[in-house]
């Protein structure tokens, strides 16, 4: 039974085991620490302070609370975030 499936077992291990190893390495290196700031790392300076036309007043207020007062978009909309 296992003889018939030997190739597949090897292939699955080749694909499946390295992620496990890399997961431990990532944990040891602190890659999974500080999730909050990593999530925000994709944004440019001031990007989260731009007013968004689709947001409700409540959502705009939340943005102000989290990221500071809103600023007007310095460039055309499509260039910034569309």
């Amino acid at each position, binding site marked *: 039974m296992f003889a018939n*499936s030997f190739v*597949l077992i090897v292939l699955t291990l*080749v694909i499946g085991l390295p992620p496990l190893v890399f997961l431990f390495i990532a944990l040891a290196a602190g*890659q999974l620490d500080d999730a909050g700031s*990593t999530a925000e790392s*994709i*944004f440019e300076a001031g990007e989260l302070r731009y007013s968004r036309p689709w947001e*409700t007043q409540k959502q705009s207020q939340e943005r102000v609370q989290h990221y500071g007062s809103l600023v007007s978009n310095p460039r055309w909309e*499509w260039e910034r*975030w569309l």
Partner: protein
Amino acid sequence: MSTPVTSNPAQEESTVDHSKIKVSPEEMEAYDQSGRKPVLLGFFIAVVWLLIGTVLGDLSSFKFDRPDLLTEQAYLTFGRIRPAHLNVMVYGWASTAMFSVSLWLMPRLCRTPLRWGNLAVIGILVWTVGLGVGIALLLAGHGDGLEWLELDRQWADPLLVIGAAMVGASVWKTLAARNVHHLYVSIWYVAASYPWFLIIFLAGNMPFYKGVESAAVNWFYAHNALGLWLTTINLGLIYYLLPKIIGRPIYSYWLSLVGFWGLALFYALNGMHHLIGGPLPSWMIATSITASIMMIVPVVAVGINQHMTVVGRFGAMRYSPALTLAVIAAMSYTAVSLQGILTALVSVNRITHFTHWTIAHSHLGLYMFVTLSLFGGMYYILPRVLKKEWPSRRLVRAHILLVGGGMVLYIVALGIGGVLQGLSLLAPGEGFEASVSSAKPWLLLRSVSAVIISAGHLVFAYHAYLLAFTSRNSLTRHPPFYELKPVLVKKRVP
């Protein structure tokens, strides 16, 4: 497989502050321009393949309605046109566009210019030549005869491997030169995809498998090509686009990591559920079904995360075609994954196996998820690389409505037709002809939807041409999509 962790002191130092010290828009623009050549080349070639694949797909579909259509030449017969369509769409359109997406994303996320960009250009060209040779040989009757692996293993596959390795080298070199320590989840997805693809593609094309083992390795490859190549880069793209366009971080960064590592650890064994009922060891099928069911963890994690990121802000879809397509693609990913888990159950598989349901399922994944995600990516990336806006809001709307509406019709029609076909095949009193008759009207509907989708592709290609090669409306100041009536959210009170 994943990215290496550096112990470079400079990067360790930057760990502390990188997410607090924001990158400037000018810096981001410089990263975009560093990969301009390979990114534009990849997208251009991808659109050409998209149009070729569309013609091949349409012909394949029409042949179900008119079996005598174009049968005088061997290269136009269904047995050659259909695999050519699949390979052109997977390796020509999707993979080449994914090269561009990777080469655009990595510099932004790693905060460094693209490295080895010229190597990536050569890689994309080598890949394209390999695919061209493979498709020509396939139409001439020389193929490997394994689904998703039809391209000739002597003349085409080595070029594909070399091409993907070159693009992957550029991606990994950029990763190695990164100026950040913490890796955003999109980096994990994109960087891991390249070694995964090379391993499974090489393994799948080895010439020494026989009989049942060959079928098992075939589906090992085909399913992993979907899950560890097509899915991963597009999830990486969606995880970037959703928060960027909406302007808020991903709902739960932890859930995004659960999604990635769940996929990385559990996905490899999924493929064997395609062989339920086949002469394989029962433990192998059982293991595959179990692995498929375990996929519910990363799928639900990704689904919840993406939904919660967008919820309350669906109105943004009126402004951004990229967001509209990314949201539909994200929803389709959840839908196709749950559908796949369901299909892996023996009781469901007994009805759907060997029917058109499978084609509907694969198009939900490869089109509604992968292709729409790539269209969304192109709507976002091309204006930034070309520094021009898409010229026409009408063409954007027409494209999205045609491809979205057409594909919904496609999936519903073939899904229903497939189930009816499967039930008919299982009915002991009915002949095989009854199963064919039950599917026929749904196949006609599929052909209608194929024409609608093709029109959408022509609109998109024409619009991309206007954007890239003319200056028409290139600097018009208007938010795309604004005219579309808000249907998902209340109008904002000023």
